[in-house]
């Protein structure tokens, strides 16, 4: 699971108001290079939840992203490369996503998070 996917996931247990972002417990992380696409990344800046991404990347061992979403991102190639790496090249293989409100763990196995809810959580 990459962080672009994580940026969209939240805890959907009935009654939970603050299920985003999910905290990450990382047991196994791998890196896989993919082609750098600056135009695509420029478009992503406005769409992603920046703080959630920074925190998630840190959980996967990558702390190069600035805390605050930079204003003039489009021009800064080195920043785009960092965004590229954090969003698309880090893979959480084993671990868990944890609801910030309830502590409920959604296990991640072989890169696949299991977001299925139990009957009493729906």
């Amino acid at each position, binding site marked *: *699971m*990459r962080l*672009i*996917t994580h*940026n*969209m*996931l*939240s805890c*959907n247990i009935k009654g939970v108001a603050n299920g*985003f972002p999910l905290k990450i417990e990382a047991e196994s992380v791998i890196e*896989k290079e*993919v082609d750098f*696409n600056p*135009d*695509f990344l420029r478009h*992503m800046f*406005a*769409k*992603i*939840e920046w703080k959630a991404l920074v925190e998630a990347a840190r959980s996967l061992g990558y702390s190069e992203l600035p805390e605050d979403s930079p204003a003039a991102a489009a021009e800064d190639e080195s920043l785009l490369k960092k965004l590229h790496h954090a969003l*698309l090249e880090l893979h959480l293989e084993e671990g868990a996503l944890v609801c910030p409100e309830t502590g409920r763990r959604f296990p991640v196995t*072989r*890169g*696949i*998070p*299991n*977001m*299925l*809810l139990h009957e009493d959580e*729906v």
Partner: protein
Amino acid sequence: MKLKQLEGLLGDLQQFSNPNVELEQYPTGPHIASRMLFTAENSYGDITDKVVADFGCGCGTLSTAASLLDAACVIGYDIDLQSLETATLNAEELEVEIDLVQCDITKLELKGHQIVDTVVMNPPFGTRKKGADMEFLSAAMKVASQAVYSLHKTSTREHIKRAALRDFNAKSAEVICELRYDLPKLYKFHKRKEVDIAVDLWRFEPRQN
């Protein structure tokens, strides 16, 4: 990539080893899958360099097709772990990256609805769990920012159009083409060796929020 090449590559994918009839697990054949994604990109520019989500991805046929057509990022969602594991193998085999999430997509509220550009899907038709096709469509229309491509039985055409425009926030709902879906005898209760169902390939555009 040419259509024939895409169709050829998709024909090599592994499919359901143990299909579950309750989930309406039928493979999306390479003929339909290749035409669906090829049209989405060539006629509408909805795949290359876009974030594409595949709802009910099964063994990842549509996801793989999107990747081969150079989507910037592809994410497949399905309820069945065994299918997702097959999808993982398929992605490795064709050397494409596909993120996979195990979930009930009709209950998963995805945040950041601007991140996903296009949803592609071959959803259940609602023959086992009534209304499943509508639930999938509703979920897709909440997530996609540019377009939703989906397959539904031709017999439900008017019903789908009405629901999409009236209830699911569609700016437009068009049948791009009618296809024949060849269903081979997968389950014991199937009497005929294979059966041909008329399905519509739909393109829906969500209204901007």
